[in-house]
């Protein structure tokens, strides 16, 4: 077993060392999937998750290369390491899928989500809403005498935190895009 430095008799070592053992710990992973932008491709991806009982925490999809007819699907999913590996392998098997990248394990990446958050309030609470929005660098994109719509970009955690703070102030509606993510660095 020299080629892969596997000790003789060892049976808990993967040659590719994708994961040391079958662990039960559930992990969250962000997957970037590049697909041909053709009819039904999103249904194939979603059908895979529902058909095999995998979880989707968030999913975004849009065409990213018009001339090449390529769309990028960013999926945040969770599962044991074995399930995550299986999800990646199953995605890779879909015929119009070009590449599957696990941004969680392939080095540092940036993740951003955009949210539109409507807060309905009056008096002092309106002022507080604006103050908090300023701290979070949220923009006011619509306003009436009794409401604001804020636009906020950030990590999902940041958006969660903002929405939690707005709840007692009069949070009435939230629209989130889901996570878009890219690897850091030049490639």
């Amino acid at each position, binding site marked *: 077993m020299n080629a892969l430095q596997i000790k003789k008799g*060892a049976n808990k070592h993967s040659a590719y060392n994708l994961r040391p053992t*079958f662990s039960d710990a559930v992990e969250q992973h962000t997957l970037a999937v590049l697909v041909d932008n053709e009819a039904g491709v999103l249904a194939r991806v979603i059908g895979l998750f529902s058909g095999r009982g995998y979880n989707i925490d968030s999913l975004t999809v849009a065409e990213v290369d018009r001339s090449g007819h390529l769309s990028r699907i960013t999926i945040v999913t969770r599962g044991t390491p074995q399930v995550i590996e299986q999800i990646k392998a199953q995605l890779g098997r879909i015929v119009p899928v070009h590449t599957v990248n696990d941004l969680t394990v392939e080095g540092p990446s940036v993740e951003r989500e955009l949210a539109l958050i409507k807060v309905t309030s009056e008096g002092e609470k309106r002022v507080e809403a604006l103050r908090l929005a300023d701290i979070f660098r949220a923009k006011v994109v619509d306003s009436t005498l009794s409401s604001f719509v804020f636009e906020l970009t950030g990590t999902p955690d940041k958006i969660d935190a903002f929405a939690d703070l707005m709840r007692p102030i009069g949070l009435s509606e939230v629209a989130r895009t889901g996570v878009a993510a890219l690897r850091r660095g030049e490639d």
Partner: protein
Amino acid sequence: MARQMTGAKMVVQALRDQGVDTVFGYPGGAVLPIYDEIFQQNDIQHILVRHEQAAIHAAEGYARSTGKPGVALVTSGPGATNAVTGLTDALLDSIPIIVLSGQVPTFMIGTDAFQEADTVGITRPCTKHNWLVKETSDLPQILHRAFHVATTGRPGPVLIDIPKDVQFATANYSDAPKKSSYRYNPPVKGDQDAITALVTALETAKKPIFYTGGGVINSGPAASQLLRELVEATGAPITSTLMGLGAYPASGDKWLGMLGMHGLYEANMAMHDCDLMICVGARFDDRITGRIDAFSPHSLKAHIDIDPSSINKIIHIDIPIVGDVAHVLEDMLRIWKARGRKMNREAVAKWWAQINEWQAVNCLNYKDDSKVIKPQYALQRLEALTKGMDRYVTTEVGQHQMWAAQYLNFEDPHRWMTSGGLGTMGYGFPASIGVQMAHRDALVINVAGEASWLMNMQEMGTAMQFNLPVKQFILNNERLGMVRQWQELLHGERYSQSWSQALPDFVKLAEAFGAKGIICSDPADLDDAIMDMIKHDGPVIFDCLVEKHENCFPMIPSGAAHNKMLMGDVSTKDAIKEGGAVLV
């Protein structure tokens, strides 16, 4: 060179260009233009089935027995939905088939038109890939791509849904591009370091075993040849899944027989006790592994598979090798030879001594009877009387299928067609029709149970119309035998709905179709009756009345490990614990 033609003509032209000689199908409103083109040519023969499900199974039988893709043609709506079982069957067993379905015209899609169904939506999870063709100009390249996708990588079924207006409209036809020009081309070469690691493990292994599956057969004749060479050269024992029978000859002296739930004792014991398991083109199905946490606890496991999702899906693999079986085995053999053909011969000899002890148990032994035909006896006689013939065997699903796998011997790949993954009752008869179409002069036998066989019995019409001398060898126990066996083991012998009541007189049924019917109930008459069946030049229904309550052994009870097999002569009472009872 661009040629103007209608979409319907393109379909026939593309089939011709792809080397298709046979199409199994059933016409209907939405495919009439294609049928009109089929009418006006002679290169491609159309086999009219009596139900669309049978068209798909026949295409599967054709594909499995030839290694070429099978083709089926069905109409929209019910035609397409009837194809779903066959598509799922082909998906689970990795069989390359191309299904063409008609669709209502594009301008009527979404209006709940007559015989409209969302065919690509319905078949998305049961095909490897599918297409709805919206422009006639896209049709030729989609047709060519469909053949490429179905046959490349891990093979599987594909479906092309063609609206009727697309069939009528005219556009340029284009030829198939080179295979290498497609983006979809999964790698066939395995990682050399991983293959070397496997060879190194093999050189020192004390108790190695090859565990092979349908992937060897799908990889092509070279894979079977290389596997045989590797097994002979290393002297390691070999077992196979239901799907892989014939890749290594049953007469080979390294052959342990099939493994799994109804596999042979020696095969399962060797899998449990081995120290190096080399899985070649198999997928650790639950029928194979039994209880996962007790599966072969002391072995280093290597897995060669073209589909990365098969690796580490169920069982943790130490040496994963993604690649085509033939390519990987070739490299493996080359590296092993280059490193000096080393094996731990002494330890392997000891391993064989142990295996021989297991073999001496003679797990396929059964209590014979001079008055009643035992199903095992019937298959032993069928094997003996057809040995050496140009023989193909299909099966339905159930006890008879397992007995056929145990008692019939296969010397070559592509000779054994059975529904492994999906377990589709009704598969065998139409599959035998597909096989016979591909091998007109061969002896094609469908080993069936009476209940399975009734599920697609309408295909007698097809067999008669096209003079296909398929032999329907029905082991008739007037029971859903496997269901009854499980009810005996798990449900206090309460045989809920597992009788075949109101069975037809199979001889009269055969005669009603103009075929030959044979009935046999006495073991003393069996040989003559089987010879009658073989010699008859035409379809035969052989009604073999067998012991009604025979159980299929050996058996790994659900939820148990490989080394906890039930043999025919032990008490089966309470053999399956509560945890096992919820498994299927």
